[in-house]
């Protein structure tokens, strides 16, 4: 059965205490972002500059990619191009095969989530261990991440304690974050020291120098990459920025927007492979070049994956990342996913109040809520709107296009609300959830106007 956001959000909402915690915790992260941002007098100038650098990038991408490729090759890095997820996964497997490697450690990469790399490699006999703590937790739980920066924000520490007890032999009932983090540190140190291949994501790739930058707080990307013989870095082609000095702008924005930190603990610049080791970069399209061609939606490619739009979103905070049934959840995910499969993700642009908070916190000024609104129109025009919405829109269209029908509908509506409220107050009408409808007025404005027109109109 097709999974849709409202039904999946219902599942998350069954545990009210958890929803409240999730809502408050993400709002707290948003509040930390605000404190960090207010310390920077030129914050708005930073956002504007970042957005304009990305405008330049999108308008000159093919040249920048060629420049990046040439410089990276000069630095001794091998470059691969993947048109889609399947090709990306195949390239990873071929690199591992060539080196006879069957066990790999991976740091956070939303692109590999998008490509379902882990599932593919496991089917092909390669063991993958995610090394970011949150990602390791959801991997042990056999779940996808629910947030791009805080992968297991939907989980309570007791559940994590239970998972660690089962998989890492920690004592039953111990759910202390400090203790569990230490257990993961010990477990993953052994992994880092023994894996011959490491895959990392890419936060920024610099055309001018052919280097790429990976940001983490945990140090897991560095531990993996510096200890492995083979380092594979996967990037969507929109990660390109023109020059090294532009990192100054993006690194000031990224962590402050994400968690309210002034910068991530590590911002590592990989330029050349280590002695006796190899470095591969896979540049992935997977629908991005099509998105680039859509004027109304191309700005979504500016995204630097900070997650600020998720933390601030009233719908995300109360419905959880898994209700978006796509690798990148929240407002930004809702404008990226329909580009990949409009029918499958037709529900996502409707999972928003269009309040605009996402656009206001976006460090690269993506017009997220405008794009959500535009996607709704494209989706309805293409006949992919949820059936209930389609049916009610048709009724509305018929009613609003004829004054006679409109007046009649108003009368019927008032009568229905007064005498048979159950006709509207039912499961078909989501507006009735957790709400009481207002008192029905005795007459409509039209009726009032007709009656009173004469009195002031001398």
């Amino acid at each position: 059965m097709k999974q849709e956001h409202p039904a999946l959000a219902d599942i998350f909402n069954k545990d009210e205490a958890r929803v409240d915690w999730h809502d408050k915790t993400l709002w707290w992260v948003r509040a930390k972002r605000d404190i960090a941002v207010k310390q920077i007098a030129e914050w708005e100038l930073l956002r504007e500059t970042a957005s304009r650098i990305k405008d330049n990038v999108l308008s000159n991408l093919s040249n920048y990619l060629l420049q990046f490729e040439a410089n990276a090759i000069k630095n001794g890095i091998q470059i691969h191009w993947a048109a889609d997820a399947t090709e990306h996964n195949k390239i990873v497997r071929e690199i591992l095969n060539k080196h006879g490697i069957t066990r790999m450690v991976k740091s956070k990469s939303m692109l590999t989530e998008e490509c379902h790399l882990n599932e593919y490699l496991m089917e092909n006999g390669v063991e993958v261990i995610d090394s970011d703590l949150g990602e390791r937790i959801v991997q042990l739980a056999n779940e996808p991440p629910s947030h791009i920066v805080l992968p297991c924000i939907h989980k309570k520490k007791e559940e994590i304690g239970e998972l660690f007890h089962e998989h890492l032999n920690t004592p039953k009932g111990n759910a202390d974050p400090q203790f569990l983090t230490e257990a993961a540190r010990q477990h993953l140190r052994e992994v880092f020291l023994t894996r011959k291949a490491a895959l990392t994501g890419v936060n920024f790739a610099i055309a001018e120098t052919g280097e790429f930058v990976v940001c983490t707080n945990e140090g897991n990307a560095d531990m993996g990459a510096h200890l492995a013989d083979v380092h594979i870095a996967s990037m969507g082609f929109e990660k390109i920025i023109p020059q090294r000095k532009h990192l100054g702008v993006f690194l000031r924005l990224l962590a402050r927007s994400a968690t309210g930190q002034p910068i991530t603990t590590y911002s590592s610049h990989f330029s050349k492979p280590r002695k006796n080791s190899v470095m591969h970069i896979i540049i992935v399209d997977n629908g991005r070049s099509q998105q680039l061609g859509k004027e109304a939606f191309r700005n979504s490619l500016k995204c630097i994956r900070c997650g600020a739009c998720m933390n601030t979103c009233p719908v995300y905070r109360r419905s959880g990342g898994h209700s978006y049934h796509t690798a990148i959840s929240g407002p930004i995910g809702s404008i990226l996913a329909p580009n990949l499969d409009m029918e499958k993700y037709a529900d996502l642009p409707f999972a928003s109040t269009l309040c605009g908070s996402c656009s206001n916190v976006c460090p690269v000024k993506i017009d997220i809520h405008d794009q959500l609104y535009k996607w709704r129109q494209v989706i309805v025009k293409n006949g992919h709107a949820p059936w209930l919405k389609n049916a009610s829109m048709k009724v509305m269209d018929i009613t609003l296009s004829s004054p006679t029908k409109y007046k009649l509908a108003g009368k019927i509506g008032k009568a229905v609300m007064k005498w048979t409220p159950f006709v509207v107050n039912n499961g078909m009408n989501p507006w009735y959830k957790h709400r009481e409808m207002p008192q029905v007025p005795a007459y409509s404005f039209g009726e009032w106007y007709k009656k009173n027109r004469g009195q002031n109109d001398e």
Partner: protein
Amino acid sequence: MSNNSRNIILDAISKNQPTYVDLPALSFTSTENIDLKQAFENKLNSIGGKVISINSLADVRTYIIENLDANSRIISSIVEIGDIAELITPETRLHYPLENIEHAIIEGQIGVAENSAIWVTERLIIDRVLPFICQHLYIVLKANSIVELMHEAYEKIDNDNYGFGTFIAGPSKTADIEQSLVIGAHGARSLIVFLLI
């Protein structure tokens, strides 16, 4: 196969990318009369690191002798204290095993006051994994190498042809379990910056 994809991707991008837009100028103003050393120290304290002011490398030597367990493995890439630590040079590099490295003392190149990040390149750490795999990290930084903003740091880095470089800001950390901050994720558990006045 992938070469074919390369051309298809690049063609699609060329066809779909919008009309060329110029790059914006980067013009950001630094704070007047800012005490860079104090600002750096305040920021580092707020993210779990610590500053110790020193007058010379002799003070680092004294600190090591007085505070670190002589039986633990102490690695340094700084020649001047090579006699009280295991010195690594481009020739010697790190000796295995790596998992028992307790302390690493390295030199930092640039400090950034706005976020207390320290720029370190492969030339200074010799082995890329050293500042990550050690349990405790110590960075010697000249106070006069502190700038206020990231933009100034990149001006200093300029077109340096490093193989690897990283900004390190504080000890490794995570808040992945219920947003509870835990210091000491996969990298170093603590960071002390010896600020050379």
